[in-house]
């Protein structure tokens, strides 16, 4: 056990149990119930009434005994895989509500808590995965992580913060844990021979990402708690509880201003010092594992040597090794987790950490057992035979399950990996290169902290949208020099794999001239990236190569229809801006050009851009110029957002009646202006003034959701064989091993569809009758 669970947790779980009963019997409304369960780390998945449970693992630490319990619980109550999160937690998925409380109780019995897994709470405190064993660390930060966790989760005000509170500990100035991108980051340093921490505050990703500000050049080790508590109090008293989009600590820093923030903070700190708050009680030094007696597997093969050079490294403790185990997208099969736990059990308690790359890292492994580890790891992950950095990429689910998603980053990552493998260059030379992908400008895939990062966006070739990625590069970590990756350009999704390979190949060729990738980026890489963007800038037309209009892993032509409702849809704003810029330029040009065909063209263009500009806010997409106007009429004129007097003008533009536009050029201008003004008044949810508000979001913050475990189709009322046709269509969108849940009518549908599905080689996992219909779960072959 790595942290102490407050004695009150058992009673709180009892209380949650009674809330579950109340909810199930309809006496508690869903919103109220949600507000209570989320701080328990219990999130609802996309599918109603299935939940995920996030287990607190400070610094990613979990004992083999605990891992075994979690994996067994997942086997009994959860999905087939456990998920490793980017905050070093383990997560169970697909848990039915009645099973939540039993899970929490059993976790408690092995010293694990889920409280603070979500909601506006002190979140899992992260730490460098090699804390305590790295040769180059300043000192072991793990005891502080564990002690601070135990202390903060015992304080009632840790559960009622304005927003989440993320804390991280780096064990050296390298800051591999991204402490500077947390609300509070501690970086181990030495000053005049004394160990302590540099402290950063108010960093974070997400909307308005920013590097944290240096709060203290240096604090003594004994002051860790005081600092964390003082910041928490400032946050608690002054944080914005009204607008959850402006609630994180960094917004508070920005709205108060640095001086005011520091002043408030200093008051709290002084107050705590006056009260002589006790410093953290550090857990006792962990003993090194007792000599164990498992049979060593010898593996002299070159395969083993290569693997060892990639994934194993000597610890500062002589004879002991740190072994990185890449886990593809952080999804660890229950049986693999069990196999790992069983192997690790005899090696001690402190042998495992989860990493923020969603991988695992074994530690304290005697050299003699590296062969055993290799044998085991090979059976768990195919990434074990690839260069180490291949397994460190993070990619969010993107448009596959996220409604803000624009692209499919996991498909892109697979395509990139394939291309890298085919290029057969010495990719190991890139060592700890980091490449991350997000499906939209939100940073769930952490692209802004990568050496090379990509985020999904929409580009247009004429009228036709196609999937593309914005390219960021050159993120820098480390005390005093951190910065986010910088935007350098964009490339079509189609060309992304080629782009990556060309770029990295050229970097490898020049790398000997530079001390690091970041040096290269600054001196040469930025230009190289821009040149490559230019090279890939023009894409073939739709008729010449439709591949450019399909995203990686997509079976449908790329489209924006249906997107754009939801907050923070930054990628869509981009698109609006393109038309806006167009409208502005055309308006200016119109003022300077004399009557003639050039002027007519500008009028045409202006009407088109103005009409198209805001269509995306309605989730519609026009495939032709004529449709732009039809949709504009429907969504803006008929809805009253734009005055009806523009109708004749829009109709004329649709007919391409240039003479009419010429005669009414003043109206074209004022239409453009109207649209611009409308955009100016649009809120973040893409609503315009006077629009009947969409149902307001739940009072309680919507947590980031993990990929849905199932796709779902309700095919009740759909006759044979269309129900089978639609099932096939739904399966098409999934990747092998993913599941689809369909609802079918009794009678011919249930007799035919599962049979036909099975004949195509897919697995029928479950078929249950509920009420008058059937729920069938299919696993894609």
């Amino acid at each position, binding site marked *: 056990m790595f942290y102490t669970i407050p004695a009150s947790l058992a009673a709180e779980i009892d209380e949650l149990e009674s809330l579950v009963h109340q909810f199930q019997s309809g006496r508690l409304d869903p919103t109220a119930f949600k507000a209570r369960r989320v701080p328990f780390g219990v999130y609802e998945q996309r599918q109603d009434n299935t939940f995920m449970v996030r287990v607190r693992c400070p610094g990613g630490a979990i004992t083999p005994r605990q891992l075994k319990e979690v994996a067994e619980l997942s086997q009994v109550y959860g999905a087939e895989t456990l998920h490793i999160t980017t905050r070093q937690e383990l997560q169970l998925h697909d848990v039915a509500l009645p099973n939540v409380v039993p899970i929490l109780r059993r976790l408690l019995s092995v010293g694990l808590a889920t409280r603070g897994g979500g909601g506006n709470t002190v979140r899992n405190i992260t730490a460098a995965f090699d804390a305590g064993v790295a040769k180059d660390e300043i000192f072991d930060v793990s005891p502080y992580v564990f002690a601070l966790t135990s202390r903060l989760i015992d304080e009632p005000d840790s559960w009622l913060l304005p927003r989440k509170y993320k804390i991280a500990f780096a064990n050296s100035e390298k800051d591999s844990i991204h402490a500077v991108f947390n609300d509070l980051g501690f970086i181990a340093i030495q000053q005049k021979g004394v160990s302590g921490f540099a402290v950063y505050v108010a960093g974070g990703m997400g909307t308005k990402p920013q590097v944290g500000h240096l709060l203290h050049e240096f604090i003594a080790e004994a002051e860790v708690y005081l600092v964390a508590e003082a910041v928490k109090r400032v946050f608690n008293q002054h944080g914005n509880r009204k607008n959850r989009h402006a609630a994180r600590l960094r917004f508070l820093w920005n709205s108060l201003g640095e001086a005011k923030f520091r002043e408030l903070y200093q008051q709290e700190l002084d107050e705590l010092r006056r009260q002589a708050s006790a410093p953290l009680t550090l857990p006792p030094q962990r003993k090194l594992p007792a000599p164990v007696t498992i049979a060593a597997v010898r593996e002299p093969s070159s395969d083993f040597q290569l693997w060892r050079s990639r994934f194993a490294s000597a610890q500062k403790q002589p004879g002991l090794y740190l072994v990185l185990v890449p886990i593809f997208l952080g999804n660890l099969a229950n049986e693999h987790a069990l196999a790992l736990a069983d192997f690790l059990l005899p090696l001690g308690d402190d042998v495992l950490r989860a990493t923020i790359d969603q991988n695992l890292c074994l530690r304290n492994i005697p050299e003699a057992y590296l062969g055993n580890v290799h044998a085991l790891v090979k059976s768990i992950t195919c990434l074990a035979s690839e260069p180490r950095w291949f397994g460190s990429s993070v990619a969010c689910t993107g448009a596959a399950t996220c409604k803000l998603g624009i692209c499919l980053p996991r498909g892109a990552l697979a395509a990139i990996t394939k291309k890298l493998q085919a290029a057969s260059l010495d990719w190991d030379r890139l060592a700890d290169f980091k490449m991350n992908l997000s499906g939209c400008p939100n940073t769930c895939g952490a692209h802004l902290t990568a050496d090379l990062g990509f985020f999904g966006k929409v580009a247009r070739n004429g009228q036709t949208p196609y999937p593309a990625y914005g390219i960021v590069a050159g993120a820098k970590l480390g005390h005093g020099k951190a910065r986010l990756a910088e935007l350098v350009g964009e490339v079509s999704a189609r060309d992304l794999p080629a782009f990556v390979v060309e770029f990295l190949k050229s970097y490898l060729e020049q790398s000997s001239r530079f001390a690091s990738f970041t040096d290269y980026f600054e001196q040469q890489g930025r230009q190289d990236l821009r040149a490559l963007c230019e090279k890939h800038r023009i894409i073939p037309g739709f008729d010449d190569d*439709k591949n450019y209009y399909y995203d990686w892993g997509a*079976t*449908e*032509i790329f*489209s924006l*229809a249906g997107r754009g409702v939801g907050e923070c849809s930054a990628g869509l704003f981009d698109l609006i801006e393109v038309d806006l810029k167009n409208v502005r330029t055309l308006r200016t040009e119109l003022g300077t050009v004399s009557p003639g065909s050039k002027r007519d063209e500008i009028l045409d263009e202006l009407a088109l851009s103005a009409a198209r500009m805001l269509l995306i806010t309605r989730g519609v*997409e026009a*495939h032709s110029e004529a449709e732009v106007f039809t949709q504009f009429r429907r969504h803006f004129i008929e809805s009253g957002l734009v005055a009806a007097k523009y109708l004749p003008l829009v109709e004329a533009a649709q007919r391409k009646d240039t003479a009419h536009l010429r005669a009414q050029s003043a109206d074209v201008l004022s239409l453009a202006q109207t649209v611009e003004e409308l955009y100016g008044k649009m809120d973040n949810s893409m609503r315009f003034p006077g629009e009947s508000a969409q149902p307001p979001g739940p009072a309680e913050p919507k947590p980031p959701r993990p990929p849905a475990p199932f796709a779902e189709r309700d095919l009740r009322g759909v006759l044979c*064989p*269309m129900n*089978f*046709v*639609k099932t*096939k*269509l739904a399966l*098409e969108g999934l990747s092998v091993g993913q599941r689809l849940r369909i609802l079918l009518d009794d009678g011919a549908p249930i007799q035919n569809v599962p049979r*036909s599905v099975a*004949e*195509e080689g897919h697995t029928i996992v479950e078929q249950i009758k509920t009420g008058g219909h059937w729920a069938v779960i299919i696993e894609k072959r």
Partner: protein
Amino acid sequence: MSFFTEARLERYSRHIILKEVGIQGQERLYRAKILIVGAGGLGAPAALYLAAAGVGTLGIADADRVELSNLQRQIIHHTSDLGKAKVESAADKIRAINPDVTVREHHCFISAANIRDVIAGYDFVIDGTDNFAAKFLINDACVLAGIPYSHGGILRFNGQTMTVLPGKSACFRCVFRKPPPPGAVPTCSQAGVLGAIAGMLGTIQATEALKHIVGAGHVLADTLLTFEALEMNFRRIKVRRDPECPLCGEHPSIHELFDEEPPAACDLKSSQPLTR
């Protein structure tokens, strides 16, 4: 918007439920471009089925106009189309069957001078021509351009077809080195043809094209399929790539396209000069 709207799912449902076609196969069909040379006895049924199947782009190459004697077997043309260009008449029917199809009309005689441009960009070609010169020209052009195609021919109660995968399977010249001397083979106008066998053969050719596009089963590569409809005998004849083939052999002598002498043509429409 997805290609698979409600209506399209329903239109193509009988394809989609086939394991060998499915969603992906149907999408491939939509992305495919198939050229039919000759909107006559073979081209007519092939075009109708390919259109119904949802092939995204169909090219029709033909220089002729619809004549009364065509209507006995060229079922894409109706009596009301008499005098209309065949490409136009065919395109109308295709669009009426399936608006998903983009039709490209090539209203011209194909010849060594233009065939390269006509076939460029297509994924598969169906030879529905009625004379040997054209058949050899299509073979040569497709093999040189690397475009798979289906050969087809009919006479009286007989038909033959094979599918050529350039560089992989026997081409028409591997099997029939050059056109027969003029007069050796009777033409349709002299010999006649039972209209329905045009349907039989053209439909086989359409099937080959569909199989090739969706990647299902095995096409008639290295296989000459012949039938004789009076007794309804079908035969599969194994053929092989000929290392001596002047076109696709080890030491090819044909590098440029050329028009064979226009000898044994189908001159059912004898009023027209044999200009192909």
